């Protein structure tokens, strides 16, 4: 059973959840494992771990570079699942994996779902899998109790929001603005209207990602959404040899969570 549903239920009337991203095996296996734990300790509610792919079309330069380095450091899907299972012994918070479809397809959908659940993973986020292509993966994940997150964006028509909502479980990943991952200076002024539109057509928790890089932006988005996803800003700190957990702590307190 995924830990996402109970977590969002628990936070519902209190505050938005902080979802912190890191690329598995970046800069190496050991560091990414300890940084993941440190971010959870610093106040992240969920850890999202990227399983690096050779051709990450949805990612901007920062996460692309981290994926490339992680592959050089020996990252494989099985290796990242191993990392998940070790983290699972140390935390009860939800753990997500973000990856591209070919890696899951090649692994075998059922086998991946089974191994991921056994490792203690709660959900899969696959950015190149739109709702209409999700059936095979979802059918493999449901019996394993693994959530499949779907994406909606400002260009998504209302009928498709419903389709995505039906295909998804856990939460809807709301792409805050058009473009690959990367830090942006300001939160799109389209965001409130966009989230309102999504809420009209979905009962799932809504988490907003792409471009969020500061505690101030977190607070702003946290007032509108059920979850805030932070990626590139944290990966960049790690790439620069700094500790991302300090930013995680700031963001968590901006959201009104643990400090």
């Amino acid at each position, binding site marked *: 059973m995924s830990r996402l549903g109970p977590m969002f239920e628990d936070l519902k009337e209190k505050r938005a959840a902080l979802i912190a991203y890191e690329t598995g095996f970046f800069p190496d296996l050991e560091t990414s494992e300890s940084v993941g734990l440190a971010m959870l300790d610093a106040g992240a509610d969920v850890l999202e771990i990227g399983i690096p792919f050779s*051709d990450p*079309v949805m990612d901007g330069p920062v996460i692309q570079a981290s994926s490339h380095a992680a592959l050089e450091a020996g990252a494989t899907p099985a290796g990242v699942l191993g990392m998940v299972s070790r983290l699972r012994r140390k935390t009860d918070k939800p753990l997500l994996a973000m990856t591209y479809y070919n890696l899951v397809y090649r692994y075998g959908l059922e086998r991946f779902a089974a191994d991921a659940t056994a490792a203690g993973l709660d959900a899969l986020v696959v950015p190149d899998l*739109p709702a209409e292509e999700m059936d095979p993966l979802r059918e493999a994940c449901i019996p394993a109790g693994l959530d499949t997150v779907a*994406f909606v964006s400002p260009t998504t028509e209302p009928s*498709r929001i419903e389709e995505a909502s039906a295909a998804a479980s856990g939460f809807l990943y709301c792409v805050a603005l058009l473009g*690959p991952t990367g830090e942006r200076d300001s939160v799109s002024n389209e965001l409130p209207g966009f989230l309102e539109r999504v809420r009209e057509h979905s009962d799932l928790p809504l988490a907003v990602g792409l471009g969020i890089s500061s505690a101030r932006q977190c607070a702003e988005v946290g007032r509108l959404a059920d979850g805030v996803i932070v990626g590139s800003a944290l990966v960049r700190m790690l790439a620069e040899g700094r500790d991302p957990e300090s930013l995680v702590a700031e963001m968590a307190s901006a959201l009104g969570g643990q400090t």
Partner: protein
Amino acid sequence: MSTERIETGTRGARRGYYGGFGGRFVPEPLIAALDELEREYRSAMADAGFRARLDGLLADYAGRPTPLYYAEGMSRELGGARVYLKREDLCHTGSHKINNTLGQCLLASFMGKRRIIAETGAGQHGVACATAAALLGQECVVYMGEVDIARQASNVFRMELLGCEVRPVVSGSRTLKDAINEAMRDWVTNVRTTHYCLGSVVGPHPFPEIVRELQSVIGREALEQCTAREGRLPDALVACVGGGSNSMGLFHPFIGRGPRLVGVEAGGIGSGHGEHGSSLGLGDPGVLHGALSYLLQDDVGQVTETHSVSAGLDYPGVGPEHSWLKENGLATYVSVSDDKALDAAGFLARTEGIIPALESAHAIAYAMAEAPRIGADEVMVVCLSGRGDKDIETLKERL
């Protein structure tokens, strides 16, 4: 599988699938753009004014129909089948790529989009795209891997001369696949104002269908020309396969009608990872650039690097409809090595006075091996997809 389904690009209940191949494996922000593209494409194709404009440009600007040339010297020297060359090398800009870019850029105008982006490997698609954009007054940005920029310098200059911005891609293997990744990232960002002019029958639905339809002019002309000249259909059709557009364009009107269809992939320098570009011959099904199709990948699904002496065949994927043709035995796919392709380029230059693009030389090499084995009563049509001017430096070094 009925031919009607082949025409619509949809097989079974799932839109955009060729058997189990194809689909739309793209980030959600692009779905609305793909829907819009499909809608506008269908209405453009049903619009007599649009078709007349496109046909006019293909005739007066691109130089169609291209000849179906009986290569007598080559056929005599080989001593077997009568070999015909479909002369796409005589198209404006020097390859078949212009058939697709005129259609797509005109479609972009029809859709009210003034910014065109494209990827390019050899630079032929980039040049063809920059040309069509210049003609139609559109802004054009072409993504090109650094490695390809170095080996296709003259095409980079041609694009710039045409008013196009060439953006170097430094990620991954710095070749065609990375240029497509970068173009897709641009498209995700600027999807409301920009048309992505994909250069082959690859990518998410509806691209494989649109590019096939725009390139099918090659096969339709060849069918008519061969019938007029020989009084019948050819026995074999041969074309090189990178993403698969010149081959699909040649094959399509002949599918299921008798002729053997042979696609020739890059055999490179060996059969190990990184030594070739034979996606159909040596790959496995996988998802790259928005479609499920044969793919060169490692055990866990990372896309592997490829190699070919010809930049246009240096690509780990292939159009989904080719995967379907292969799976159903409707076409066969073979590989030709770098060396054999280089030899074939020299051979065609000597016997016919035609210097082929190194991509097309792969198809010539297959014809050289195969024609002597079959009788003079057989007719073989080879797609000469482009001319070799861009490859002169490589030919100089290697021959």
